[in-house]
């Protein structure tokens, strides 16, 4: 790979190391879709190995998969790829359970993947939208920790939302 050619088309590869030691080799153009990595690349310049002690390999892998899809679709860039990206995003979030959603969100936020954070937060929002309180509790297994009467009080305070 490391030929001495100076053509600008040679893509630089970065090694990303997750908290559990798993490493990923990704093209710079893919990894720099993540703001945090973009900053590290710009600041540290020649460093090719980037350690990410806050992200587990499983979720880093998923984040990178998302970046790769978006980077690929954007190289042929024209607006038609918005459609492809949207379709692919829909697939990406389709059956994520809440544990995965949690870890992906934490990873995406840590890596400053703004677009991915938006995609995931909107996914969580879609699981809340139009639902009754009991249904939301059931979806996310949220236990009410209110003292007797407290919940009633809050309901009263925001009564307009429960009409």
């Amino acid at each position: 790979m490391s030929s001495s050619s100076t053509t600008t088309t040679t893509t630089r590869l970065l090694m990303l190391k997750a908290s559990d030691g798993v490493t990923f080799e990704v093209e710079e153009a893919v990894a720099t879709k993540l703001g945090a990595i973009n900053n590290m690349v710009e600041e540290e310049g020649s460093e090719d190995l980037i350690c990410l002690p806050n992200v587990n390999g499983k979720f880093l892998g998923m984040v990178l998969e998302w970046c790769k899809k978006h980077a690929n679709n954007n190289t042929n860039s024209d607006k038609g790829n918005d459609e492809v990206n949207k379709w692919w995003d829909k697939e990406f979030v389709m059956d994520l359970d809440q544990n995965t959603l949690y870890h992906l969100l934490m990873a995406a936020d840590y890596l400053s993947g703004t677009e991915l954070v938006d995609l995931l937060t909107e996914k969580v929002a879609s699981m809340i939208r139009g639902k009754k309180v009991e249904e939301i509790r059931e979806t996310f297994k949220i236990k009410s920790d209110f003292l007797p009467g407290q919940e009633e009080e809050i309901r009263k305070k925001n009564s307009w939302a429960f009409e």
Partner: protein
Amino acid sequence: MEAMDKISDLPTFILHRILSFLPREDAARTSVLSKRWDCVWDSFPIFKFDQNRFIKPKRGSSTPEHVEQVGRWIELVLDNGVRELKLKVSIAWKPYALPGETFHGKSVNGAYSKFYSLQTLKLEKVYITENTIRDIIHNCGNITWFALGSCRGLKGLDISNLDKLERVDVSFENVCELERVNIDAPNLKSFRLESLKPYLPTKLNLTSCHDLKKLTLIRCGITDDILHLHLSRFPLLEFLEICDCHMLRRIRISAQRLRCLHFGGRDKIEMIEIDAPTLSSFRYTAYNISAPLLFLRNVPCLMGIVYMFDQYNVLNSSWFLNLREFLGVPTQRKFFWLNFEANEVSFDLEELGELAIPPVIEVENLKLTYNVMRESIDFASLIDGLLWSCHPKTIYITSDSTFRRKCMKVLGEKLLDRERTTCCDSCHVKCWRHDLKGAKIEIFQRTKREDEPRLVYWDHLSDHALQLLREYDEVRFELAWK
């Protein structure tokens, strides 16, 4: 494992982000989930004041008293250090007149208060005067993003002395009275103007915004000279979109950092000359088959042509003949994308018997999409017409719609049957089958959703290949032409 509540453990700002996607009632209801969620709701920093939530629909549109509240509401948020203010007022009978004193600042012990915290200001469907714009400039010195949508009352938009301003968006939906735009903002990075009339505003001056990276002009009365003058002042320009500007005729673009260029619409451009060594995306969108002459120097990327159908276009033999001529102009144009509305398609070579037939060119890639599909569309004619009008080297189809699945199937069958069919031997104009050397098919499938599509079949087209086609496959047809 599944029974754990992890969502409540997310940081508060992420939960706020989640609430921001919800209607206000849904967001407020989360307050009774648990103590955690009650706190999250209490600290939710976005306040949407939506008249529909407070006015019973029976009473119809807002009454003047309600409208008066809007002014008081704006005053309240401005005094409380709002950072982002988006105001959209929909009143049936006339535009909402933004009170003249809104951004005037209040006199406190003789000194006028200013709105330092305001960074984003978007005003939509309001009547606004040039005095108000002057107040905003004077009192909201930290604005970075200023947007006007369908506002009335402005003949001129003059902005200067806003050193932090990075982005300005101006658009119109119903009426456009704006005649001139002057912006002098040293840090402006992005300017977008979407007018309603292709000849308004007639005067545009952004020439002192040397850092501009992104420029979008949709329907605007800019002339060739003014455009050239502007482009020469923007050495950092990376993104340029020009659509439906009817005054433009002959354009020269020389931009050393340009990455993305988009022309198009129903404009009357005759010639475009482009020198853009770093261009990576170049698209021309057409609504009718008559393209400008293109002179490309130093343009390293493929050119994409997108053809947008108007509704209920009829695609007949002479339309395909025009398409062949349109695509045949020798430039670097290479991939072609047709976006269908509900169309009727017919194609019969016999009808072209007496006409002069232009040479056909190869395009790298052909892509087909649709907005509205008519079930009865004649796919056989569509495929015959397209393969005759341009010779695509690849046709890539993802099967996420009935339209594409039908295209995929008909195309596959046609390619496979081409040697068994007696085609146009008697006809003066030859069909695409006579130019085709060979066809290959690649079928990508995925077993699990998160998989990369995996190549499962790669060979010459055969009955077997067609039988392999499943609903959610991605298919690439590779065609070799003589």
